[in-house]
Structure formats: structure tokens, C-alpha cells
């Protein structure tokens, strides 16, 4: 038992009430330019929701609003049943940013330990957890190198390990697999699903890859071009658990087509 | 615009704080009758700690009982210093630009020379001031002040060399390849692509160089007996006549001279940028 865990267990229990993430008419303008049209969205506990939409439509902005890194211009946000601000202060979510954002002055291992350090974990526990996370993303052998010595894809995997390290009840992931090759990408997808099966983590996931969204998600939210609004929320009724066979399933291809066509509608007004 | 206004307020605030700091320090010294934090008894008197406004007013007072005001005297000396600064600066810019261009085109030259240019910065070259002034003074063909100007030159060369090298290297490789594909000569590529690309860095270096040139000239003057200029005035007031008010006023003038040199280069930069790129600095 580590210092961080009781609080997380509690937040997981609270999350049962009214959705882990609930957005009501949330919009964002940067100065006079609207970046995000009013969006309402609910993410049920244990759900895996993907956001898909043209570049610049406000997906990252939406994720940052959930994370309380950006103030919405209008609307209300609750995370784990609380205002976003409180949820952030209670460390209810872990976030993987679009860029890896590692600290060059820390070794890979100590980068993964960073959130645990901030949250006051004891050194031995930090170390053990970081080791496990690094094994999970296949990077245990580079634990003592520093970020500049790793490739972009490896850096991104470190960022994922770091976000998973404190086993948050909610994961916010902004194109986490964008920098990976196809095979590594599929391996990471399987890994993410395995972690989720074990921990029951809720995931809000941004991606540009339609097959990835369909393969991973319990539902796919398709957004229009800037300023982004929700065009459709498409439930993914593929059988669980998702496996290699899922990628060959005719239903998988049907869903991919459906999502693609919805996306097209948003680009051609 | 809002940021500009906020910065102006901030700068004014800091300047006001500096004046307050000085007056506070003065009050402390007068109250304790000693300097602080190194207490030298008997020096904390009003004569050695003039008010800021008294220093400013001193420019309008006659100096050494003669009819000429201190301000007029200092303007004359500043003119002498500025001549050294201008000549030394110009020479330093030319040498620095030439070295930087050479380094940008010859790896060998860069590898052989650059370490020395860097080492030259760790050498307390200003310690050479008396040597240089006497040496150039022994050459009849050179004017008296040439040693002082050379000292300025030395301080300008390093920032200019580095700025030129960086600036020339900052030109995009794609532009270089484009011009090559037209069969443009190295000379054309230098003046059409690399130098324009280097302009911001050149001016940044020149601004550093301009203030360094003022430092060089002042140090040169104070090591040359009877060289005059602001440095000579500082030396005389500090040592010979021991007149605190005039000393403070001269030190302040030295600071203004540095700001003036910087401003001239900054104005030139603005003019060049507006002329060639339409960008306002």
C-alpha cells in the first residue's frame, strides 16, 4: 500500500455517480476565434471514449479543459463528480500529452517516478512501481538513460508509463501512439487494453487513426472541423476482449466505414 | 501594446526603486556614520553620499571655480571618448565580421582559430590597457588616442565574430541549395542569402559590442595619463581632486554614454529592418 492509493480507490468509488467526465455546453474561444463549439459529453465509468476529428478542431483543447489546464469560455465540467479544478487537485486523472514532455535532467526511470515523487510516495515504492511500468512498455533496459538518447516513439512510451504510474481512475490521452510504427502501435494498443482490463480505468482518448479508435473504444465521438462540435457518438459493439481477431472482424470494418463517413460529413458542410 | 505599457511601468518602477535604494543606502550610512556592509568609520558623511538630485544639479554648476559648467566640461570629454569608441567599434565590427565570415566558410579556420577567440575572452585583456596605450603612444604616426580605440576594438571583435558566425549559419539549407541550383557563386550566396539571414544576429552582436566599446575606451583612458575623456575625468575626480559630487556626476555620465552607444545601434537596427523587411523592431 502506498500513500497515493487510498485516495484513488475512493475516487474510483465516487466516479460511479453521474459519469466520470461530464461536459455541459462547454465551449472555448481564443480571443475572437472560436476553437470549440458548445460540446456536451458524458463518459461512463470504465468506458473507453475516443475523440476523432480534423486537425485543429479542438480535441486537445477539449482534453485540456477536462484536465483543468484551460478554462472553458462557457459551460460546466465535472470530473469524477467534482469541478475539474478539484479533480486536478485530487489527482483524479493521469494525462499523456501530444508531445512526450520528458525532463532531460532525469533518467528514464526518474521521469516515470516524477508523479509519484510529487505525490509523496516513498522511494522504494516509487522505484518498484516505475520498474513495473517500464517493463509494461518494454523499456526496462533503457531505464538509466536520459530522454535525448531515446527515439521519439520510445519517449512517447515513457510518457505513457509515467501517466500510468499512479494508476489514475481516469486517463486522458492525446494522440499517445502518434509517433509509433505500426507494429509497436498495435502492441501498445494491446498493452493499454490489458491495463484497462486489470484496473478498470476510464479512458478519454484522442487519435487521428480511425481503425485505432474503433479497435480500442467502447464509443467513438466524431467532431466537426473548427470550431469543433460533436457530430455523432458511435457506440462500438465489438465483442470483448478485443484481440487480433477483432482486427479482422467484418463488423470492425463496417464500423470503420461508418466513422469515416461521419467524419466526411463534418468536413464537407 | 498592453505588454509594452506594462513593461514601461515595470521599468519606471525599477528605476524609481534604484533611486530609492540609493537614498536608503545614503540614509543608512549617514545614520550610522559608516559605510555598509563594510563599515569604514568616518566615511558615512553627506559629502560622500550626495542626493540623487544634487548629482543631477551638479551638471549645471561651474566646475573647479572656472566659468565652465561641469556639464559642458563632461560633454567635451564625452566627445573625445566617443571618437575613440566610434573608431574602435567600427574597426571591431569589420574585423569581427571578417573573422566570422571566414569561420563560416572554412572549417579548418574555425577549428584552428575559434578556440583562441574563446580563450581570448578568459584573458583579462583590459589588463593590457597601460601596455597598449604606451606602445601605440610610441608610434608617432598614430594619434594619441589610438591605443584606447584599439582596446575598444578588442572588446567588439568577440561578440561580432560569434554573432556573424551564428547569423551566417542560420540561413536555411534549402535556400542555399536553391541558389546553388541556379549556379550562384559563393559570393552571391553570401550576400544574397546568408548576410540578410544574419542581420538580426549581427545587430544583436553590435549592440553588445557598442556598450563593450564604451567600457574599453573608459578603461583605456584611465590607464593613459593625461588621455582625458570620461575615463580621464573619472580618474582625476576619483584620485586627484577627490571631489565626490563631481565623481558621481561623471560616473553617471559614463553610464549615459553606454546607453547612448547602445541606442545608436538600436536605432540603426530599426532603420535597417524597416527599410529591408518592413518589420518593426
Amino acid at each position: 500500500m502506498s500513500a497515493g492509493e487510498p485516495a484513488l480507490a475512493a475516487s474510483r468509488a465516487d466516479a460511479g455517480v453521474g459519469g466520470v467526465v461530464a461536459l455541459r455546453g462547454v465551449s472555448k474561444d481564443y480571443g475572437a476565434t472560436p476553437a470549440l463549439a458548445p460540446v456536451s459529453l458524458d463518459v461512463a465509468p470504465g468506458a473507453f471514449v475516443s475523440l476523432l476529428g480534423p486537425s485543429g478542431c479542438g480535441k486537445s483543447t477539449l482534453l485540456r479543459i477536462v484536465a483543468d489546464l484551460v478554462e472553458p469560455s462557457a459551460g460546466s465540467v465535472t470530473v469524477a463528480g467534482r469541478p475539474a479544478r478539484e479533480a486536478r487537485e485530487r489527482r483524479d486523472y493521469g494525462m499523456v500529452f501530444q508531445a512526450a514532455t520528458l525532463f532531460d535532467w532525469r533518467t528514464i526511470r526518474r521521469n516515470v517516478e516524477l508523479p509519484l515523487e510529487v505525490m509523496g510516495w516513498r522511494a522504494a515504492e516509487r522505484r518498484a512501481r516505475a520498474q513495473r511500468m517500464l517493463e509494461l512498455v518494454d523499456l526496462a533496459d533503457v531505464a538509466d538513460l536520459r530522454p535525448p538518447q531515446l527515439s521519439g516513439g520510445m519517449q512517447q512510451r515513457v510518457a505513457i508509463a509515467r501517466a500510468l504510474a499512479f494508476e489514475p481512475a481516469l486517463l486522458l490521452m492525446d494522440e499517445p501512439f502518434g509517433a509509433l510504427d505500426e507494429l509497436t502501435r498495435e502492441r501498445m494498443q494491446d498493452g493499454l487494453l490489458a491495463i484497462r482490463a486489470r484496473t478498470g480505468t476510464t479512458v478519454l482518448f484522442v487519435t487521428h487513426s480511425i481503425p485505432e479508435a474503433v479497435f480500442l473504444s467502447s464509443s467513438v465521438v466524431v467532431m466537426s472541423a473548427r470550431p469543433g462540435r460533436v457530430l455523432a457518438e458511435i457506440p462500438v459493439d465489438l465483442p470483448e476482449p478485443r484481440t487480433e481477431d477483432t482486427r479482422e472482424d467484418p463488423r470492425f470494418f463496417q464500423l470503420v466505414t461508418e466513422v469515416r463517413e461521419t467524419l466526411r460529413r463534418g468536413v464537407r458542410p | 501594446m498592453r505588454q509594452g505599457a506594462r513593461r514601461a511601468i515595470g521599468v519606471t518602477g525599477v528605476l524609481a526603486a534604484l533611486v530609492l535604494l540609493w537614498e536608503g543606502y545614503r540614509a543608512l550610512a549617514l545614520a550610522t556614520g559608516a559605510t555598509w556592509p563594510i563599515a569604514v568609520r568616518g566615511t558615512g558623511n553627506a559629502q560622500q553620499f550626495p542626493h540623487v538630485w544634487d548629482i543631477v544639479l551638479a551638471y549645471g554648476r561651474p566646475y573647479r571655480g572656472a566659468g565652465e559648467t561641469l556639464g559642458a566640461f563632461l560633454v567635451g570629454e564625452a566627445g573625445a571618448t566617443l571618437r575613440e569608441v566610434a573608431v574602435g567599434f567600427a574597426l571591431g565590427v569589420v574585423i569581427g565580421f571578417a573573422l566570422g565570415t571566414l569561420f563560416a566558410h572554412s572549417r579548418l579556420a574555425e577549428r584552428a582559430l575559434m578556440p583562441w577567440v574563446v580563450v581570448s575572452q578568459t584573458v583579462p585583456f583590459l589588463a593590457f590597457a597601460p601596455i597598449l596605450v604606451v606602445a601605440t603612444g610610441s608610434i608617432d604616426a598614430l594619434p594619441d588616442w589610438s591605443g584606447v580605440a584599439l582596446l575598444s576594438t578588442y572588446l567588439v571583435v568577440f561578440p561580432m565574430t560569434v554573432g556573424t558566425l551564428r547569423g551566417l549559419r542560420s540561413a536555411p539549407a534549402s535556400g542555399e541549395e536553391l541558389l546553388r541550383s541556379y549556379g550562384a557563386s559563393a559570393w552571391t550566396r553570401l550576400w544574397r542569402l546568408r548576410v540578410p539571414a544574419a542581420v538580426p544576429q549581427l545587430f544583436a552582436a553590435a549592440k553588445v559590442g557598442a556598450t563593450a566599446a564604451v567600457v574599453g575606451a573608459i578603461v583605456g583612458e584611465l590607464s593613459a595619463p593625461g588621455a582625458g575623456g570620461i575615463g580621464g575625468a573619472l580618474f582625476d575626480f576619483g584620485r586627484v581632486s577627490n571631489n565626490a559630487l563631481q565623481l558621481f556626476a561623471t560616473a553617471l555620465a559614463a553610464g549615459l554614454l553606454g546607453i547612448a552607444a547602445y541606442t545608436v545601434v538600436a536605432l540603426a537596427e530599426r532603420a535597417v529592418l524597416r527599410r529591408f523587411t518592413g518589420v518593426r523592431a
Partner: protein
Amino acid sequence: MTTPAATPAAVAGAAPAPGAGLVRRSAGAAAPLALGLGVLVVWEVAVRALGIRPILLPPPSAIAAAVVQDLPRLAGATWVTGRSALLGFAIGAGGGFLAGLAASRWRPLREAVVPVGVVLGSLPIVATAPIFNLWFGALSIWSKVAVVALVVFFPVLVNTVAGLASAPASSQELLRSYAAPGRTVLTALQIPSALPFVFGALRVAAALSVIAAVVAEFFGGFRDSAGFFIKTLMANADYTGAWATVVALSAFGLALFGAVALAERVAMPWRRDDRGVRT
């Protein structure tokens, strides 16, 4: 001098890869050493062949002889000047860093400190030397230390403030997402990000401190200081002796610079790592 980018060592280029080791490094040193040696030979030959007077340029052999012959006295003079430089360096750098930390806490101050600090730092601060002589006495080490500290203070202050603010917004957001307290942001992110800036400033300051100390001595100082030596030797037409004093002082300046560079490598191990173990 506002960014570490403008500092000498940054210009010296990236350190050779550790793997390539000694071979590459000694090959890299060959060209400048050859050039340096060549210059010395040409200098020596030219002075002798053209009969250049020592007042203009003494031959290097004579300077070397003077250094060897006068070593104890030169070492003493260098130390008298050097300790003012060291003390002023420590006070000015420490003060600049602490003031930078303090100024960073309040945004309007932070924004004002950089331009004002750059301007004040580029002014001829050595002009304050006679003022400090007036206050602390020309024959007090503190009048020299004060000039050095003031000269060192501004570049360190400016670069500390700039460095603390240099952490990318994305890294700040990461820590914000952990709800990290301000103190953690400072120690885990801002100070490590500031180190390259601070060390850049310290390298500049190391050179400036020796210069400031000797120039302050030109305005009047100890009779056994390097600054006093240089002026009196020149007055006594012992040009070679004056050159020898500058050489001794340069050795001290180089040593101080080297010490800062070494401290930099120790403090920032991540900056000398080899890149490219990509898989």
C-alpha cells in the same frame, strides 16, 4: 550577454562524443595548438629580425623568462588580485542568483528586471571603482570586491530570471496536471531548466571578475597587486615585466574559467550525454 547562447563556451561547440574519446579530442586540439605555436614562432622571429622595440612588443622568449624569473612575486600579485576577483565573484554570483529567484516570484518585477538588468549590466560599471575607493578606501580589498561583485551581479541576475522562465509551457502543464505545489515546480522544473543559463552567465562572469578586479586596481590599490604592478612597470619602462604580469593574471583567469566549466559538467550530467542510442 542576455542568453547563454552568447557565451564563450557555447560557441566552442558541442563536446566530442564520449565514445570517440581521446582520439577525436586530441585531433581537435591539433589545429589550434599548431596555430598557437606558429604564432609564437613568427612573433619571436619577427621581433628579432625586424628589431621591434620591447615597448611595442617584447619577444615571447623574454616574457617567458621574466615569468620564470619573477614567479614568486608574480604569483603573489596574481593572488592579491585574484582573491578580490574570487570573493567578488562569489558574492556577485550568489547575490545575482538569489535576487533572480526572488524577482521571479512576481511577474511585473520579472518582466522589468530583464531589460533593466541587461542595460545596467552593459554599462561601464568599472566607473564605480573610484566611488568604492572613496567609500571603503583605496587600500581595502572591499573596494575591489564591490566592483567585481557589481559587474558579476547583473549577468547572473538576468540569466537566472530568463532561465527560470525558460521551462517550456508543456512541462509546466505536466506539473500542473499533478497539482504540484510551487516549491516542487521550482526545484523539479524551473531550477534545472535555469542551470544552462546560469552557468552560461557564470562563465562570462568568471572572465569579467578578473578584469574588474585589475581595472579597479588601476584606480588605485594595493602596492603588491597585479594592477598596480602593470602600471608601475610600464612607468618604469619594464615592458617585459608588465607583459609577464598579464600572462600570470591570464593563467588565473583561465583557471577560474576552467573551474566554472568543470562545475558545469558536474552539475549538469545530462548535458554531456551521448545522443543517438536510437532503437
